[in-house]
């Protein structure tokens, strides 16, 4: 379980996050949604330690992550998997090299065992036999899937996903969403997803946190989102005709 308490983040005079608190539970897909510039990605980066919050605390299973130094954070970081918006695959490594990289650094398994794990992860994301391709030879959707394979290679307790559907066609987006959902259920991971894709929200949003102007505006489930009377959330969720039509049918 991850708990965030009163997170503030300021860049110069710009206050991006203003006192955000929340709890992300294992086995659930927690979605952080909001418009562009609402602070979603900044919040995610504060949670994983890529940004230090100006104030507030982040707890991983009760352990205060914010006060830890680099070395103290390493055991927790080994349990974190993250899929970046642009996949962030290492260009100089093959698909196999990318997925095996954390195993090489943090385990003493023999090569065969590591290769088995790599192949298991690649099979999970439907990329068998693509081991020797380089990131430049992959499509956007394939890169995302390799990113997921790399993120789960160390069997993480916590999975963070930043804009999983950006730049992907609707079918691939659904495939990626389903994959993340499957991983969350199968491995009971605490999954935190930053998105503004409403299909993801309605598809896999077990727990939703809506940010507006750096503040937590609304929190609930996908079932509740359709019936909310929160003006800003309604404007955000039902911006498209399709979503409005879908709500009318409910």
């Amino acid at each position, binding site marked *: 379980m991850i708990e965030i308490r009163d997170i503030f983040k300021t860049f110069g005079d710009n206050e991006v996050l203003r006192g955000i608190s929340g709890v992300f539970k294992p086995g659930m897909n927690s979605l952080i949604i909001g418009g562009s510039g609402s602070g979603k990605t900044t919040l995610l980066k504060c949670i*994983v*330690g*890529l940004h230090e919050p100006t104030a507030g605390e982040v707890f991983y299973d009760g352990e205060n992550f914010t006060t830890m130094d*680099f070395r103290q*954070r*390493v*055991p927790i*970081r*080994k349990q*974190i998997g*993250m899929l*970046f*918006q*642009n996949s*962030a*695959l*290492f*260009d100089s490594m093959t698909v196999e090299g990318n997925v095996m*990289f*954390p195993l*090489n*650094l*943090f385990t003493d398994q023999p090569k065969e065992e590591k290769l088995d794990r790599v192949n298991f992860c690649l099979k999970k994301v439907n990329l068998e036999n693509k081991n020797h391709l380089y990131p430049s030879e992959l499509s956007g959707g394939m890169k995302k899937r390799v990113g997921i394979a790399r993120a789960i290679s*160390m069997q993480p307790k916590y999975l*963070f996903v930043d804009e999983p559907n950006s730049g992907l066609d609707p079918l691939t987006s659904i495939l990626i969403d389903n994959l993340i959902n499957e991983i969350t259920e199968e491995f009971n991971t605490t999954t935190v997803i930053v998105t503004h894709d409403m299909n993801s929200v309605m598809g896999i949003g077990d727990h939703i946190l809506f940010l507006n102007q750096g503040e937590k505006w609304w929190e609930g489930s996908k079932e509740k989102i359709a019936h909310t009377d929160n003006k800003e959330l309604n404007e955000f969720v039902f911006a498209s005709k399709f979503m409005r039509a879908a709500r009318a049918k409910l």
Partner: protein
Amino acid sequence: MFHTLGRYLLLLRLSFRKPEKFSVYWSEVMREMVSTGVGSLGIICIISVFIGAVATVQVAFQLSSPLVPKSIAGSISRDSTILEFSPTISALVLAGRVGSSIASQIGTMRVTEQIDALEIMGVNAPGYLISPKIIAGISMIPLLTVISVVLGLSGGYIACIVSGEISPTDYLSGLHDGFNSVIVTVCATKSISFGFIISSVCAYFGFYTSGGALEVGQSATKGVVFSCIWILFADLVISSVLL
């Protein structure tokens, strides 16, 4: 300026933290050594032969007095090649070739979130990315300098044969005359220092890149420019202290 210097020193300290796994770092060091050493061999060979040849021809031209023995051209050519041309000019060329590659490679990794990915995994990103490059720099650039010295002096010999300004025998005898081993120490000190400057300064600018492709290019340019300035400054300091 103090902010930049402080950040540079902190980055160096982070770069030499204990590695997560020695074998992974070792393979990175080997990869960087091949990239820096073998990758730069061609350009170093070409410039060294020409610089040695030009230095010999020009010295021979300036020492045209009958009172000065012709062999002195060989001695001057030797000293200037070992003391200055090979270490410094090679370093300036390598700052362009190796330095820009280091800055742009690390800068691209920064803007494409690859460095964030390393940090999320719990990897000490400065250690994994920068220390192998520094180790490769301080080991391969001195080796390239040795090759440059040999080829520079050979270039001088070829120039003697081709131009006929001085006889090859006089040139060879000049190479042996009055040899002082301190110039080898100076050359080694310079090349190790320059290797360190090129790799660490360019890595610093790459590591703190923010933005996109345009900023990666700017970081590479800054890395090369600052490396060149520091190389010339270190050249002056080492020469003043050791000679």
